[in-house]
């Protein structure tokens, strides 16, 4: 069935999306449910719209439902893989500076953010969605993505700085 092929194309980014939104939820389970629901909703898919953000929005909603029902737990957090680097990618100047410990510090600060901030940073930087896709996937007005991202990054900086102050000495 062709839908299976379609699922196959988007399942990886769907699992990443679900995981970013609900790190301690069952991302795979959320993604399965999302694709099943999307099938039933195909008629609502606008033909002139791209498919990826449409399916990611359904995935995001599934993941949020799970996050809500699971409640906030202390274990909820994104984790970094054990310093595994993509073998074929040449490190950027930034990545050379940002060694493993710095990555962990940045990730820790992201995990301290509230959900909306973590989601928009995740959508733009981790999933690499553009502004329009981010708006669609997260259910935000298109014009607000830039400002919301800017505020989220501002709070990320504050979080980084605040904790840095608190930990000093």
């Amino acid at each position, binding site marked *: *069935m*062709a*839908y*299976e*092929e379609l*699922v*196959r*194309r988007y*399942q990886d980014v769907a*699992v*990443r999306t679900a*995981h970013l939104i609900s790190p301690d939820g069952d*991302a*795979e389970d959320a*993604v*399965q449910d999302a*694709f*099943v*629901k999307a*099938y*039933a*909703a*195909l*008629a*609502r898919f606008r*033909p*002139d719209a*791209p*498919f990826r953000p449409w399916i990611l929005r359904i995935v995001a909603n599934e993941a949020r439902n799970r996050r809500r029902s699971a409640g906030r737990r202390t274990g909820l957090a994104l*984790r*970094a*893989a054990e*310093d595994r*680097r993509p073998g074929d*990618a040449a*490190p950027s100047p*930034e*990545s050379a500076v*940002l060694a493993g*410990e*710095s*990555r*962990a*510090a*940045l990730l820790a*600060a*992201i995990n301290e953010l509230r959900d909306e901030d973590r989601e928009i*940073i995740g959508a733009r*930087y*981790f999933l*690499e969605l553009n502004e329009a896709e981010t708006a669609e996937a997260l259910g935000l007005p298109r014009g607000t993505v830039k400002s919301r991202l800017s505020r989220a*990054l501002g709070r990320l*900086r*504050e979080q*980084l*700085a605040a904790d*840095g102050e*608190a*930990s*000093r000495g």
Partner: protein
Amino acid sequence: MAEQRRAIAAMDDAALAGALGDLAAAIAYPSAASGASDIAAIVRQRLVAGPPARKPSGILSWIGRRPVRRSVLVAIAAILVLAAIAGAVGLGLPGIRIVFGGPTQSAPTATPSPSPTPTPSAGSTAPAASNPVGSTMGLGTAVSLDDAARIGGLDLVLPPDPAIGPPDAVYTLADRVALVWSERPGLPADPDYGVGLLLSEFRGHVDEGYYQKTLDSSAQVKPVTVNGHAGYWISGTPHFFYYVDPSGKAVDDSHRIVGDTLIWADGDVTYRLESQLPMEAAIRLAESLR
């Protein structure tokens, strides 16, 4: 860690963006994000096992309630743009809408193998002993030509060429009729099903419904005319069909792809001709149908 945090907090915007981009590659995702779990197969099994419990809502139920002639296939269209598409283009045609997209992601484009699962709505499957051509394509229930015309509510048109003759197999699925010819001189077999010609005929209402087709990025769409009726020639790659039937259920109709496709509408009937023929020959064949 405080040291690193302060260092990152002090970065300028570009450096912070770079750090976030760098972090993206390091995030530990569930193994399912790298293909460890065949979510696609699981989803297929769940869909085959039964429809989701939720009732159709919104436009689905609206469509289902429309006082559309029940026997008419409201060939609407659910459309799957198989790509991250910027600026997909829809081509309008009464009764037909075709959508195609831009570059796809690096997903494999293997031709789906014939499904071992019969289409659920087919009701029955042909006896294994005498598989007529096309029996594994999910075209529906094998019927006689007369029954097909009755079920479809159509005056079926056929190629008058005696070298082609009557179809080798006829299927109906809902009120869509599929006529299948195996290989003939001049009608080479498709590599997957051994089908020389597949002609689909069904009613799609011009006002109420539309019919859409999603194409992979490498597909070519060329506007053509068939006996003066607008149509399209679609070539280049396996493409994907979805209908939404009058009950609002999306019907995956993709098994029928056996080659390049000529699609056109004549009044409220939509025709789809699939074969290995080049465009001009396919149009000639289409224009000869009686």
